[in-house]
């Protein structure tokens, strides 16, 4: 693995500095509201990075990913409420369930192209939300319909995934994000990554080169859904209260897709950049305009998206990368094989 070898010293230094800064932020910033917002930004970057496995690399546009966030949140929570299972265990269970659901949905839908796949995923996401809103109880598990679930306060501990301060949540999601970015890098530089890109771009040519395109898309879907569900459990544990509209809704699905498209889908750091730019906007509009103009952030996102798609169809990561390379005095990419991959360690936030 040459993740660190190809970087020049300035890159490594900057990367290290950014990482140290990220880990020190909760110590520097005292305001818990600020920490919460930062945590939500990283959470959005995490979810979008998970989405990227399908939306960025498999050449389709999923618009129902909140379904898997919801599956994660509900699974870990009902298992905790009913059997007292640690949310960490529930997190894995939710991930596995989401991967299974993702594959079942993917088998018929991943064969569709363009808008048809997007529409199918919207339908699934919305269908699941309506279903959950109308169910009070499944077997021994309380679902509570539209009023959602409240997680009982327990002792603040790692096993319980509950903490009095916001700091630990920040660190947990930061580590989750870094791991997902590492996984993205590894995937892009593996047979799966090459096959996904090939199948997404020219399915017919890919098949002629021995690639069973549908199989690789399903693998990407399973990975993406599994990881997305982990993000759902995280959200549930941080907020300790959620209801179908808050995690199952189209709002979240769209927000993820907006972040990816504006930041740059199919690149490692595009989702991170997108989340850094857009999530603060949605938080601010929610705080100040939440009562008068709910959903204002989606209108703003839409406008931004139109402008970005017009001038930077590959997302803002492209000019950002150019600017960064100019700043560190690097004239060209070291390898044309995988330009995105070479900056993995350099621009994390």
């Amino acid at each position, binding site marked *: 693995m040459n993740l660190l070898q190809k970087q020049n010293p300035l890159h490594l230094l900057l990367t290290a500095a950014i990482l140290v800064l990220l880990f020190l932020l909760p110590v520097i910033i005292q305001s818990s509201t600020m920490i919460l917002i930062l945590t939500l930004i990283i959470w959005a970057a995490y979810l979008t990075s998970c989405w990227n496995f399908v939306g960025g690399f498999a050449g389709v546009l999923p618009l129902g990913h909140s379904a898997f966030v919801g599956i994660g949140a509900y699974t870990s929570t009902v298992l905790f409420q009913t059997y007292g299972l640690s949310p960490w265990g529930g997190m894995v269970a939710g991930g596995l369930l989401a991967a299974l659901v993702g594959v079942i949905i993917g088998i018929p839908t991943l064969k569709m192209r363009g808008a048809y796949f997007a529409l199918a995923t919207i339908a699934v996401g919305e269908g699941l939300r309506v279903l959950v809103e109308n169910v009070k109880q499944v077997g021994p598990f309380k679902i509570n319909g539209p009023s959602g679930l409240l997680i009982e306060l327990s002792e603040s501990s790692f096993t319980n995934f509950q903490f009095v301060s916001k700091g630990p949540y920040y660190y947990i999601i930061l580590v989750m994000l870094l791991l997902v970015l590492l996984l993205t890098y590894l995937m892009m530089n593996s047979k799966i990554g090459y096959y996904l890109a090939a199948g997404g771009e020219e399915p*017919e040519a890919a*098949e*002629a080169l021995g690639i069973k395109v549908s199989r690789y898309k399903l693998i990407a879907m399973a990975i993406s859904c599994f990881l997305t569900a982990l993000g759902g459990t995280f959200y549930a544990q941080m907020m300790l209260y959620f209801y179908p509209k808050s995690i199952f809704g189209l709002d979240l699905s769209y927000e993820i897709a907006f972040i990816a498209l504006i930041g740059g889908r199919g690149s490692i750091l595009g989702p991170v950049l997108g989340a850094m730019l857009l999530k603060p906007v949605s938080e601010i509009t929610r705080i100040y305009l939440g009562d008068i103009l709910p959903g204002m952030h989606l209108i703003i996102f839409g406008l931004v998206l139109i402008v970005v798609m017009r001038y930077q169809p590959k997302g803002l990561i492209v000019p950002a990368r150019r600017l960064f390379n100019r700043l560190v005095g690097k004239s060209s990419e070291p390898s*044309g094989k995988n330009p995105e991959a070479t900056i993995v360690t350099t621009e994390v936030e």
Partner: protein
Amino acid sequence: MPFLEVNNVTKRFGGLTAVNEVAMRVEQREIIGVIGPNGAGKTTLFNCIAGAFSPTSGSIRFQGRELAGKKPYQICQAGVTRTFQVVKPFASKSVLYNTMVGAFAKTNHLHEAEQRALEILKKLDLYDKKDVISRSLTLPERKRLELARALATEPTLLLLDEVMAGLRPSEVTEMLPTIRRINEAGVTIIIVEHIMQAIMSLSDRIYVINFGKKIAEGNPQDVVADPEVIKAYLGDEYVATQH
């Protein structure tokens, strides 16, 4: 047992019979040309062998294994790789990336795939272009890339669908030795082509197809002298002027 045996393959699209009871035998290490006027069914026959279509009836046996009805990726995994008449590079990716996708057919390791791909690019004079995004290649380069990608899967039978169409005569002349070298390395080749100069000099044997039917087969000299072939290409009145 022939290397590739096409037995009475028929492909119908509704009422149209694009390929009608075509039979073909290919021995290992041959270069076989398939010619015929536009719309004769050459590419459809090709698509049947490569798995893009499954034949309505008939069988296609490759090294004793039935290919008819198999999916394109299975056929590629069996050792038969095709190129496309309208080239289909992974446009946003580099030449090396494109070729590595092919090389992954025989390895799971990134480094190994890269080594194999680089070797092939050297052989096809694309090494200098390895980092170029394939969208910005010229047509002859794209045709070469199409060939490189197919070769990277290490096929034993290579199906070339008009790899020289659209090239200038000088570029065709450059392509011929490349194809010969691939063949000399042990790859059997079936080639569909309109450029007669190319197909005459390359092919060991030629099959001529018209209206979906095979009308002639044999070595290049015999085939061009065949009255049926002259009729198909030039019309009835020209047949009489021949001996």
